[in-house]
């Protein structure tokens, strides 16, 4: 175990490793937990995950660098990911991305100077019926017109929400959805990581 990790994260790591017949399989979940611990996948985080899974640090780095959702550089409080794949592109995704870049003063692929935002374009988000879509800390908003995208950026900057909720943002800034969810989710994201209780990245609203 990694003694410098928070007690909660140590507990999570133990539970995650126990979920698999071979502990090597826990490398992906543990990279999420390590991201929460360190803010992103640092060199130290990779060494720690290696220790937990019996791999070498090089093997963990090889895995971490393969997947786009593991950030190996500092990331803003709000990771804004604009889908620019075919269905969103057909519905104006490039205009949405341009509006987001302009309003946040941050170019695609970069973090704002104050660390509030990281802006990125992503490949298909799997919500093509609600195109164009974006997500904030992997919480999805569908049917986002450029002016609503600008309003979203201003809201994030001014309100500084601690927990990001897809449902709240959908009501404030969204439009057409792929399908209706009907009821609000009780959890949201506390970091630029997918909000999932076993990884410690979700919080009750």
């Amino acid at each position, binding site marked *: 175990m990694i003694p410098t990790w928070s007690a909660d994260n140590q507990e999570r790591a133990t539970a995650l490793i126990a979920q698999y017949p071979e502990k090597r399989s826990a490398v992906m979940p543990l990279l999420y937990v390590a991201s929460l611990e360190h803010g992103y996948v640092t060199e130290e985080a990779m060494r720690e995950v290696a220790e937990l899974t019996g791999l070498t640090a090089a093997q963990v780095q090889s895995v971490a660098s393969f997947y786009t959702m593991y950030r190996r550089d500092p990331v803003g409080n709000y990771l804004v990911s604009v889908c620019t794949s*075919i269905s969103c592109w057909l519905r104006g995704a490039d205009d949405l991305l341009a509006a987001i870049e302009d309003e946040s003063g941050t170019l695609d692929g970069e973090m704002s100077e104050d660390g509030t935002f990281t802006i990125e374009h992503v490949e298909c988000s799997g919500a093509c019926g609600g195109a164009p879509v974006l997500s904030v800390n992997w919480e999805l908003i569908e049917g986002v017109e450029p002016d609503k995208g600008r309003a979203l950026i201003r809201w994030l900057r001014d309100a500084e929400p601690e927990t990001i909720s897809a449902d709240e943002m959908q009501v404030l800034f969204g439009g057409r959805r792929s399908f209706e969810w009907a009821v609000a989710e009780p959890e949201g994201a506390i970091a630029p990581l997918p909000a999932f209780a076993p990884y410690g990245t979700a919080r009750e609203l």
Partner: protein
Amino acid sequence: MTQKILTTRMEEHPSDSHTLARYLDTGGYATLHKALADMSPDDVAAEVKASNLRGRGGASFPTGVKWGFLPEDTRPRYLVINADESEPGTFKDRLLLERDPHQLLEGIALSAYALDVQRAFVYVRGEYSKAARRLQRAIDEAYEGGYLGAGIAGSEFSLDVTLHLGAGAYICGEETALLSSLEGQRGEPRIKPPFPAIEGLYSMPTIVNNVETISNVPWIIANGGFAFASIGPTTSAGTRLMSLSGHVATPGDYEIVLGLTWRDLIYDVGGGIRDDRPLKAWVPGGASAPWFVPETHLDTLVTIDDIAANGSMIGSGAVIVMDDTTNVVAAAHRLVKFFAHESCGQCTPCREGTTWLERILDRILTGQGRRDDLDLLLDVSDNISPGLVWPPAMTTICPLGPSATAPIVSIMRYFRDEVEAMIPVEEGSLVAREEVLLG
């Protein structure tokens, strides 16, 4: 034509179709109990085989046949559910995960019983955090209710289900890449054979099935394989979740019985084209599928076999519709860019070829195209997928590289004049470039 299998509960009970209480209230898990009490594992497998259910993830392989490939004696066996839905245009597994996760779990339990599996994994793409939360809650509820875990419903049958979250890699939807990823490695596809049924997760026999495929299993066992087989065309049995996106008036997921025409699907189900504009082309089955055009295909049938006979595939059921305002070179560029980004890099034809295709299209789009670029596009495509035939020939471990040639072949076949029109008349001339860029 109104038969529904997968979306009945979520339509009738939109506020709580994802909860255990509602699932039980609408007959959920009764089929599992009945099967454990009255049916042998072979009986369950026989119903699935009789149903003619074919995989909903893209390859349309008969599920019962795939199950039959498991070797007799080797244990343990694993069941892995592919919820890494990432094919551009596809958003139907998310619907099933968010709105009816217990339907999937009952399908997993029935399938695991049939296959003598005690460990199942669901690989959910990392971006689907809401779907993952709902599925995890459903898993927790199912354990508490005794529908998962040790000795289910007083039987000898035990099953553990683990949700594994991906981290942003389309290639992990390819079944052997998914298994590599689940083992804690880079998500790189493996050479087949051996197929996963023989040597899969941790080198043990493994069945990998799509979310929609397995979500059909409770209905099949409850109503019998024959009842399922009798819905729709013989070789496209059952219903199908079609994801309509792009320039249709009403994009969304629609559960339909196959056998209708494309005209019916686009103009009735999809509500026609936005603002009543003319239809230019559509992608019939996800980004990897060769395109269709109205002059040739509008009155052909939407079945697995008819689409294949017309040189494309139903794939993941993702229909991406483009109206007359679409710049087809830009659309092809967007699709090729996706494959270039998602190439895992193992095979040279895919790693280099997809990048070349992207760059050539990019320079055509920025007014720097050369007259021999049209031939070059086809030549590079031919090196990735020799002969540019359908189904595609491969020089690579997996079909990702060949998939990138589908949009190239499509625009060269149907819109060659539009591609040519983007090449400056006087090669390299700035004036000509401006003419292209400014129209």
